[in-house]
């Protein structure tokens, strides 16, 4: 039973990783940018979630507002920050992104205080028992929410016209452009969706911890990079699987390896091992 409960906990953590990392891998697939500031958007999602919930009492409204605002900000970041330096070597965008992320964390601290904020009446804290496993409603919501959102994304990408255009652009931007695809529009959409997913993750994490701090994004800022590399950089399906795998490995690792290595080191030891065998990532194509 313990193993199953640990598995469940790992999947919950993995779902959060997935929501953050999918946006990152979408950006990478399209623009070849390691978008570290994505983690700053995740934090903002958490802040908006808590602030709107506390003001209105509605978590659902908070979720929608958070996705919209953060999605739009993601688009603005693309336009104002990345677009002008797309033709530069990749490390230029990387350092710009890191600078932006540091600045975002500091803005949150100055605007919302260094202590972080919490829900006044945290929603979804009740406990449910499923097949003998104890989970909080929030944790169940994380799992189901991730499934639904990623599922919807997959449907959108495969069944709609715009989705087809999107996938074509990610696979081969030049070819797509020659077929008359408005690449700029695709990029905006890409940033909107990726950032909105990060906002959902931020709201969810705020729910699970009942705490949003300025530095909430610091772990996802590097952990999500590891995940998209494991997933094969730019591969959404691979990223999803890598995120869940990492969540589960960390869950077992914390208990059985925790006295030898900490959570981060376990995750990166796994990453390095995988890359030694498969330099293109677990699910990447050679």
């Amino acid at each position: 039973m313990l193993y199953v409960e640990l598995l469940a906990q790992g999947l919950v953590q993995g779902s959060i990783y997935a929501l953050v990392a999918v946006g990152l891998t979408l950006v990478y697939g399209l623009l070849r940018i390691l978008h570290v500031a994505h983690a700053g958007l995740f934090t903002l999602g958490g802040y908006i979630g808590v602030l709107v919930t506390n003001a209105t009492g509605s978590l659902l409204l908070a979720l929608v507002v958070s996705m919209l605002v953060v999605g739009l900000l993601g688009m603005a970041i693309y336009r104002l920050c990345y677009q002008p330096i797309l033709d530069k070597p990749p490390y230029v965008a990387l350092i710009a992104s890191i600078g932006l992320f540091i600045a975002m964390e500091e803005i949150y601290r100055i605007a919302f205080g260094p202590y972080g904020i919490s829900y006044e009446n945290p929603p979804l804290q009740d406990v449910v028992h499923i097949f003998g496993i104890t989970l909080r409603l929030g944790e169940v919501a994380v799992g189901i929410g991730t499934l639904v959102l990623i599922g919807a994304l997959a449907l959108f990408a495969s069944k709609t016209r715009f989705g087809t255009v999107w996938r074509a652009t990610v696979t081969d931007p030049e070819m797509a452009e020659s077929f008359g695809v408005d690449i700029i529009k695709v990029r905006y959409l890409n940033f909107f969706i990726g950032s909105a997913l990060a906002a959902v993750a931020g709201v969810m994490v705020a729910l699970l911890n009942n705490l949003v701090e300025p530095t909430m994004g610091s772990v996802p800022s590097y952990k999500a990079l590891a995940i998209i590399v494991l997933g094969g950089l730019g591969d959404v399906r691979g990223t999803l699987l890598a995120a869940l795998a990492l969540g589960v490995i960390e869950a077992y690792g914390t208990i059985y390896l925790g006295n030898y290595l900490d959570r981060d080191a376990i995750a990166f030891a796994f990453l390095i091992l995988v890359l030694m065998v498969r330099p293109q990532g677990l699910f990447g194509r050679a």
Partner: protein
Amino acid sequence: MSMTKKMMAALAITGSLISAPTLADTVKIGMNVPLTGFAAADGKSALLGAELAVEQANAEGGINGTQIELVRYDDQASPKHSVPIANKLIGQDEVSVAISGSYSGATRAAAGIFQSEGVPYISAFAVHPDITKSGDYVFRTSFVGEVQGRAGAKLVGEMLGKKRVVVITLKNDFGKSLAAGFKSKAADFGIDIINEYEYSIKDRQFGPIVTKVKSDKPDAIYASGYFFTAGPLVAQLRSAGIDVPVIGQEGYDSEKFIDIAGPSSEGVLITTSLDRDATVAETKDFISAFEAKAGYKADMVAASGHTAAKVAIAAMRKAGTTDRQAIRDAIAATNMVASTGTISFNDLGEVKKDVQVQVVKDGAWHHYAVIDDKELLAPPVE
């Protein structure tokens, strides 16, 4: 002050520069404190506490009529920055005494500089045992981790009578030294440590540990951490149905812990140095004055910053000069009532004071007990 003691102190700083007392119109207290980056929350509280002590003292006429100036620099809790800052405080600002409102790494590195330049230095809340080992100019007004860990063992094993205990340890110098202190006395109080887990300061999701602790079925949980890790941890333990007592330490000691953990925080016990229900005027005054100044309730870090500054001010008053050696001697001879209790130092510069046990009741910290066992609480002497 005996002649031999003075000579010993003089001997200790032979070969280092002693700046002559300055004839400025203010006396300066230096402070390194994290105001940006990950440690900014604690830095803010410590700074406000120290500022309060300086304002209070200035309102009473400063040091024998001379106003006190607090010169503080942001060290981002990094040893890399605290070293040049220590040099700046000593050489450029010519402070008479300095305090640290920072974490262990930054404080440990700066302590060496203050010691070698013969400037008295008081650590407000950094826990690393080596800080005071820098030498006779370095003092600490908070407990070392070991002492608090021992008090925790007494609280769990004797006062609560819980014997099967799980230890959850924060993997840094604070958590490690608490765990070491707790384990050193566990057997004496009949405690059987049935399992131990470690987590990183970055963790907020404790699902796997909580799951495992549940299957351990302990009588009590001794968990080290800060309010931002302990808040989520306690909430997650409670919602998994684990309702045995949770015992924490001064790292929990903040209003924010109760905000985060909500109703789950009820009944959580901690060992700390600030008594919310104090009848001592000094502590009562501090609690109300701090809230008026800061706009939020006092916490352990704030009280520690206040205490450290207060000790420095009292020593300067007693010494009646800005001579650094005289101030050092006055600090060493401290015996005063501060917001964190009655304070004196042992030969190593470690504080001797009682441990306050506080409990969360009706959504606020309250008095539970005091541990004043001198032998148990004896700070390390070397």
